[in-house]
């Protein structure tokens, strides 16, 4: 007698929550239909050309032997212990000061120097940084929000399973600086082996793009 009662009540609760969850799913589905993140709005040829130019500029810099050697060296120094340390740093990276010596290591090395030179020549680049083949930052012009990028979709797309792929991303809106920009992603390749040894990301400001259109 009791068993049946419990079964009926349990079934009722199950059905009720089932309906509620189904309802919720439909509800969220309706608001998610517009949220296809990977679907990039098609750019006009004029815009593509401007972005292509930016990628070429970045790519040229990344082919400099000095830059390649530095990245190769960082790659060769990679070990699991080193990665552990870097993950630990990544956790508190967001809170470190601009004057922090650790940040200086990334913003004042040879590659960073070259990046900054490019930036001063091409003010459209509001930010440039380069990672090694594991996704850890190697050099950067500004302080980034983190130093491990391999977990991000853009990095994986540019790494392209070791093949490497240059492309321009979505328009990005930076709520903190209230600027908008389009990022370009360029793989760094070993000229000898053709292997991808790092990924570079450059953020081009919209205002600069507009002026070049």
């Amino acid at each position: 007698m009791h068993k049946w009662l419990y079964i009926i009540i349990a079934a009722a609760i199950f059905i009720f929550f089932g309906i509620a969850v189904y309802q919720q799913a439909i509800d969220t589905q309706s608001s998610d239909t517009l949220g296809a993140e990977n679907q990039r709005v098609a750019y006009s040829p004029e815009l593509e050309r401007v972005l292509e130019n930016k990628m070429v500029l970045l790519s040229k810099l990344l082919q400099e032997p000095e830059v390649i050697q530095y990245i190769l060296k960082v790659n060769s120094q990679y070990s699991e212990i080193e990665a552990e340390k870097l993950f630990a740093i990544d956790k508190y990276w967001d809170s470190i000061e601009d004057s922090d010596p650790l940040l200086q290591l990334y913003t004042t090395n040879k590659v960073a120097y070259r990046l900054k030179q490019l930036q001063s020549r091409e003010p459209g680049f509001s930010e440039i940084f380069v990672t090694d083949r594991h996704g850890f930052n190697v050099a950067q012009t500004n302080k980034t929000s983190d130093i491990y990028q391999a977990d991000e979709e853009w990095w994986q797309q540019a790494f392209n399973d070791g093949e490497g792929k240059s492309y321009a991303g979505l328009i990005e809106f930076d709520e903190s600086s209230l600027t908008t920009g389009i990022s370009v992603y360029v793989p760094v390749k070993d000229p000898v082996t053709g292997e991808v040894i790092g990924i570079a990301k450059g953020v081009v400001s919209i205002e600069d793009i507009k002026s070049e259109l």
Partner: protein
Amino acid sequence: MDGRRQIEVYLKKYLGFLGLQGKLLVFLGFIGVMLVALLLFNLYSLLLVANFSKEISERDIALADAIQNSLLLIIETNTALGQALAVRDPADIIFFVEQKNKVFDSIISIESLLAALTWGSETESFKNANGGIHYNVWHERQFSERFVIFPPSSEQVQLAGVASVYFGGFANHARKTLEAHESYIKLIQNDTDSSLFSSAQSNVGTQYVLTLRFSKLTTEKFLSIVEGANSAISQKASDILNTQRLAIVNTSIISIIGFIIILSVGYIFTAKNIIAPIESLTAAATQISKGDFSLRVPVESEDEIGALANAFNAMTESIGKQTSDIVERLQHLVKEQDTSAKLLIRRDLDLRKANEILKKLDRQKSDFLSVAAHQLRTPLSASKWALRMVTDGDLGPLTIDQKTVLMKGYESNERMIKLVNELLDVDRIASGRYQYVFEPMSIIDQIDSVLVDLLPTINKRNIKVVFNKDKEVPNILADSKKLRNVIQNLIDNAVKYTPPNGTVTISLVPEGGNMLAVSIEDTGIGIPEDQQGQIFQKFFRGTNARKLKTEGSGLGMYIAKEIIKMHKGRLWFESEEDKGSTFTFTLPIVRDENT
């Protein structure tokens, strides 16, 4: 089971509900929860519909409205640009400048609208972006009063972003076109070389083509946003329909399930809490009515039914105990009765034996009396006659002394004969051998005859006898000899126990229609009250009668009573000590004889 009891105890203790009431309340509470769930679900559906409707009206329509306005502005800009480019006469330079300003003005408006589309018109980002320029324009040009743009979806952000990039291109090239055209006008004004003309003209053309190209690209993106808004509207409209459909379906499902659950729970509730215990009580009651008092109803709850079961069990126990007590007592009584019955049977046997002995003794006594009387009578009669002959002087003269002695002997003999006769009468009465011969006769004659016989005694005692004779006294039916015996006995007693100078009155009174009452009243010693009940017993004599030293066997009254009884009459008396007695008897009248 324990959990359920705990709940019952909790309800009782903390909420004050009684058992069944509490359970019913829990059940109703369950129904209430179902109803509330249904209500909440429907409210939720309504809220969804309302929310979609609100979004459509506030968000999507407003967005479409703002974009429509932007498109109008682009058209206006293009128109103004076209009109500015149409100016070729340096004299129209003012118009050109007006149109040019119009173009720049529109560009500022569209940039503001684009920024609002990108950030949302009410956001902090919009307020602060580009140093607040766009936000200021938004307010100065009263867009804030006409449009509210909600923070956009990610696709809209991309579209708005790209549109603003293209519009940047448009603005760039529009500016360059106007600048080129202005230089062209200046060339005309200065009448410069015609070769410069064509190069300036082609420069204007190139810029204008690019301007139009970016205008088109911007418009396309705006249209994409409108499309997005439209599809959002249609999506939401279909969501509303879906929600409505779901609400109907779900309400029906929940209602049906709820109905089934309420029915099931109701059924189980009544079956478990009311019907089952009552059935088990009924079964127990039936069993107990058959005499099985050992049965107990299982008590499964703390509620009223449980209390009833407890009371029922207590009642059964009490009845069982009382019944077994009664049975025990009955058994005891039966045993006692058995013993008594045995005793009684034995006593009965003893009594019967004793009775037989007594009967035998009585028979022997009667036999003895009969034999003795018969044997006594003959010699007594012989003695009587012998004494009579002697006293009568048949055997020679006697002296007075001799005669006196012999007379005493004679009288004693007479008394003996009388006693023997009475004993014989009693014996005959007892043995049923007393024979009656009834015949009509005159009672007066009988009384008179007795009075004549008793006259010597009456005279001797100086008693006054009054006989109230009625002339029309009817004849009676009687055995004359035996009746005479009765009358003689009664009058003799009256005379004997009445002191000298007393009176004896004899009266005849008809009793009813068929009987005649004869009463003999005296003024004698009477019968003591305490002895009146014994007067008709054999051998009884009153204590005052004995004191008088009168003769008497105590058998006379017994015999008289028996004789009158055999005449179908009645003999009774009324008496008061020292005042007198009245003896009365009745006899049947012979009517036919008179008529």
